[in-house]
Structure formats: structure tokens, C-alpha cells
């Protein structure tokens, strides 16, 4: 039962990340491999704030989201002003830089050993300690996230983003702020990723740089690609399927030394195969 709970909770954290990636990559059409970095920043901030007992869980999540919004705006604003390919370089750079910080800034992040003993989250004075309670927390958070995503997609802002993806020039010609809309999408993606980080840190009570490296960013992209871009269903299906994959792999007899590479290899193959034969994913729209 504990195993099932932790699978559901983790998958739900990744659904939040999937929504974030989908907003950025699927809807706004901005390629990004720095989603895991933002996720990590959120996780480390919440972990530090809770471990030093600076504030409670809810304000800590708020701080993490705000920092991640600021980070994403800062990252996207200068590069998107120029062109999309400049943002590709920026996002690779941010991801590598973030990994360097997570590993080498030992005082703040615990270095390669990670941060153990992150206290469980509290909601309005109630400590959430059992797995069942934590799953409730992640489920409620994901529910709110999905609701927000759905509302954004229905709102004029969502339609503007879709229009930009279809034809940027036409949108600019009718007098809409393209750069502003893209940066806003990135900011929203930052808020989603940051809060996912906070949930992840408190649920596992341990974080280390491996969870937030380039491979993790590739995994997030694979989730959105497999699930399907631009839809709520896609962002939910992808994480649940891909997080089950390592469990399936344990049934096949693969030596443990190459298990990690085998997993990443499958993500790579999935990316290629879906781009070639089904760019809309299982339940998405055309990418």
C-alpha cells in the first residue's frame, strides 16, 4: 500500500511538472530543457525554509513559487527578445549552471550528498505525516493545478498563447504583445514547477542534485511528448505512464549497472519515435 501511495504522490508531483512543461513547450511553443532546474530551485528553497524553521509550509511554497517565477522571467526575457534558438542555449545553460550550483554550493544544498531530513509539511498547524495524508495533499494540489491550467486555457490569455504558436507574426500584426505573453507563460510555468519542487522535497524528505539534472529535464519533456502536448489529459497520462516504466524494467532482467542508462535510452527512443510518427502524443494536439 505504501508503494502505491508513493507512486501516486510522485506521479502527481510530476503531473504538476508536466503541466508546467506543457505550458511552456506545448502551448507557448518554447523548447526548454531547464524545467528540472526550476523544479530543483523550488525544492531546495522549501527544504531550506522548513529545515531552518523560518516559516511554515504554505508561506514557504509561496516563496518558492515567487522565486521560480522571477527566475523564469529573468531567463526568458533577454533570450526570447532575440529568438527562440537563443532560448535553447539559455535553457541548456541554466540547466548546467543549476546542476553546478546544486552540486558545489555545499552550504545551501548539501552538495552531491543532498539534503536529508526535510520535515513533513504542515497545513494550518496540522502536521501531515502519514503517507495517506501526503497523498491527499498532493492530490489536492494537483487538482488545483489542473483547474488553474484548464481555466488558463479557456481564458483569452490561453487563446492568445495558442495563436502565437500558430502564427507569431499574425498575432504581432493585430497588436498583441507576443514577448509579454510568452514571458507570462514562462512565469506561470515557473510557479507550477516551483510548487512541484516544494511538494517533492517534503514528500520524500530527501533531495539531491540527481533529481534535478539534465536527464530529469529530458524525462519531463518525454512525459509531455508521450502524454500529448497542449491538453490536460496529456499532462496527466504522461507522468503516470513514464513513472511506471522503471517498475516494469525491474521485471526484465537488466544488470543494475546499466539500468539508469537503459531508462534514459528508452526516453530518447520515445522522443524520436513520437516526433516521427505521433507528434501529438497519446492524448494531445499537434505539437
Amino acid at each position, binding site marked *: 500500500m505504501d508503494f502505491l501511495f508513493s507512486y501516486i504522490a510522485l506521479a502527481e508531483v510530476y503531473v504538476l511538472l508536466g503541466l508546467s512543461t506543457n505550458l511552456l*513547450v506545448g502551448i507557448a*511553443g518554447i*523548447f526548454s*530543457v531547464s524545467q528540472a532546474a526550476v523544479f530543483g530551485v523550488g525544492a531546495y528553497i522549501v527544504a531550506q525554509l522548513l529545515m531552518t524553521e523560518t516559516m511554515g509550509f504554505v508561506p514557504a511554497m509561496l516563496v518558492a513559487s515567487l522565486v521560480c517565477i522571477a527566475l523564469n522571467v529573468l531567463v526568458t526575457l*533577454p*533570450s526570447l527578445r*532575440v529568438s*527562440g*534558438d*537563443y532560448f*535553447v*542555449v*539559455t535553457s*541548456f*545553460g*541554466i540547466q*548546467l*549552471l543549476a546542476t*553546478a550550483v546544486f*552540486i*558545489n554550493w555545499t552550504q545551501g544544498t548539501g552538495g552531491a550528498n543532498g539534503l536529508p531530513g526535510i520535515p513533513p509539511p504542515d497545513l494550518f498547524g496540522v502536521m501531515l505525516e502519514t503517507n495517506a495524508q501526503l497523498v491527499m495533499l498532493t492530490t489536492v494540489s494537483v487538482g488545483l493545478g489542473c483547474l488553474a491550467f484548464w481555466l488558463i486555457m479557456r481564458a483569452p490569455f490561453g487563446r492568445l498563447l495558442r495563436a502565437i504558436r500558430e502564427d507569431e507574426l499574425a498575432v504581432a500584426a493585430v497588436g498583441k504583445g507576443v514577448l509579454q505573453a510568452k514571458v507570462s507563460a514562462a512565469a506561470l510555468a515557473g510557479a507550477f514547477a516551483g510548487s512541484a519542487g516544494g511538494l517533492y522535497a517534503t514528500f520524500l524528505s530527501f533531495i539531491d542534485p540527481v533529481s534535478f539534472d*539534465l536527464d530529469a529535464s*529530458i524525462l519531463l*519533456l518525454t512525459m509531455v*511528448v508521450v502524454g500529448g502536448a497542449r491538453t490536460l489529459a496529456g499532462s496527466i497520462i504522461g507522468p503516470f505512464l513514464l513513472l511506471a516504466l522503471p517498475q516494469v524494467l525491474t521485471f526484465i532482467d537488466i544488470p543494475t*549497472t*546499466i539500468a*539508469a*542508462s*537503459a531508462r*534514459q*535510452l528508452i*526516453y*530518447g*527512443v*520515445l*522522443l*524520436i519515435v513520437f*516526433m*516521427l510518427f505521433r*507528434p501529438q502524443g497519446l492524448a494531445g494536439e499537434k*505539437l
Partner: protein
Amino acid sequence: MLALQLLVNGLVTGSALGLVAISFSLIYSTTKIFHVAHAGVYTMAGYVAWSLASRGMPDVVTLVVTVAACMAMGALIQHQLYARLERRRATPLVVLIASLGALAVMQNVIAAIYSPNILQFPVPWGSQMVVLGGVRLTWTQILTVLASLAAYGATVWFFHRTILGKQIRAVASNPFLAEITRLHPQRVYIIVVGIGSAIVALPGILVPLDLGLQPYSGITPLLTATIAMIAGGIGSITGSFVIAVGIAVLQNLSLLVIPGEWSIGITFFIFVIFMLFRPTGLFAAAR
């Protein structure tokens, strides 16, 4: 004295990096594809060469076979992946995701076969030291500088003096017009990616000869090379090469004041400065 040694080290890594930048710049300015999988070809070169060298092949055979293998791999990626996507009118985002998938596949196939640990080349002459005017150099480093300068010169000559080079530049500047004059852009793309992959095989062999092989070490040089390409002006071979050397020298000199693990920060800082103040690069006019 330390500064002089670092300066020379910078020139050595810079000349290898310059070749990565040239090769990426050729591919990018012609096909307009952000060929992330290039980092995989770069990594592959080292491993192919290592396998041949450790089976006792003569060095010349190793070099020729490795360059040919990389060329074939590049052409294969263009022909089987990018050309197929092009026929389906895939967006640049889709091509980029597929390219990232190809990179993940290559890196992890290598990691699964050769293990993710560092491998050293079984070449005894490579690490022999020479002292030149108080600066210590290995034969590998001297060879790196000479080979890189030769390859740089050959590339410039090829693109400005031969028919094929001029045809490639014609396709790069206007694929539509080139097609009218029966130049077959798709065929030229395969040739260009092949040539670029052959060029990147050189630093792909020479750098690990000095520093050892690791399956996931291709991304950082590729990122630095793309930054050099942008800062040098997209399409300018000399610009990419010069800036790459400049970045590597700056990185090495910065070791005097900043620990090595932050060198990615230096690179990225240079990129941000360029992006903010001169996004078209230094040598952009020459197209």
C-alpha cells in the same frame, strides 16, 4: 608563470572547442536545425577511437575510421531523422525534440556498452611532457593545436574555393533559390551534416586523448561552442573559431580567481552579455 600556463591551456582547449563551434555553425547556418545530437557524435568519436586504439590499430587507421564513422552517423541522422521530419512539415520545436532524443539515445547506448566511468586512452606517447619556455605541454596538446588550425584552414578553404563549398553556401543563404537552380537542398544538407560530423570527430578524439572519456561529457563543449557561434556571428567560420578560443582562454584565466567547477558560469555570463548588447555577434556582417 601560472597565468602563462593557463593562457596556453586555454589556447589548447580553445582550438579544439573552435572546431566544435565551426562544425556546429556549418550545420546550423545551412540546415537551420539546432543539431543538439551533434554532442552525441562528438562523444561517439572518442569511443570509436578508443575501441580501435585499444585493439592495437595503427593511429592513422583509427583516425580515418573514426572520422568516417562520425560522418556516416551525421549523414544518417540528417537522412533518417531530419529529412523525414522536414517532409512532414514538422515545426522547429519538433525537430529539436527529436534531436534531443537522438542525443539521449547515443549517450546512453555508449554508457550501456562502455559503462559511465572515465576511460583513459591506451596511448603512451599522448601524455609525455614537453617543456617549452617554462610552459608544460603534452604531445596530445601540441597535436590538438596543430590539427585544429589545419582543420580550420582547410574548412575556410573548402567553403570559399571549391565548387561544393560554394554550393553549400548558396543553399545556406537561400534554399528556395538554390532549389530552382537544381542544387537539391536536401542532398546538400546531408553533405553538410556529414562534413560537420567529420570535423567534430577531431576534437572528439583529441580532447579525450588528453582528459579521458565520459559518455555524458558532450553537452558542455557543445553549449560553449554554440555560444561561440552566436557571439562570433552565425555563419562566420572565423568568428566562431576566434570566439571559441577567446572563451576558452577566459575560462582558463578565470581559474586564477574562481574555482574550476564554476567555469560554466563564466561561459554563460559571456553569452548573457552578448545577448543583451550584441545579439548578432561580432563578425555577423560576413554572410
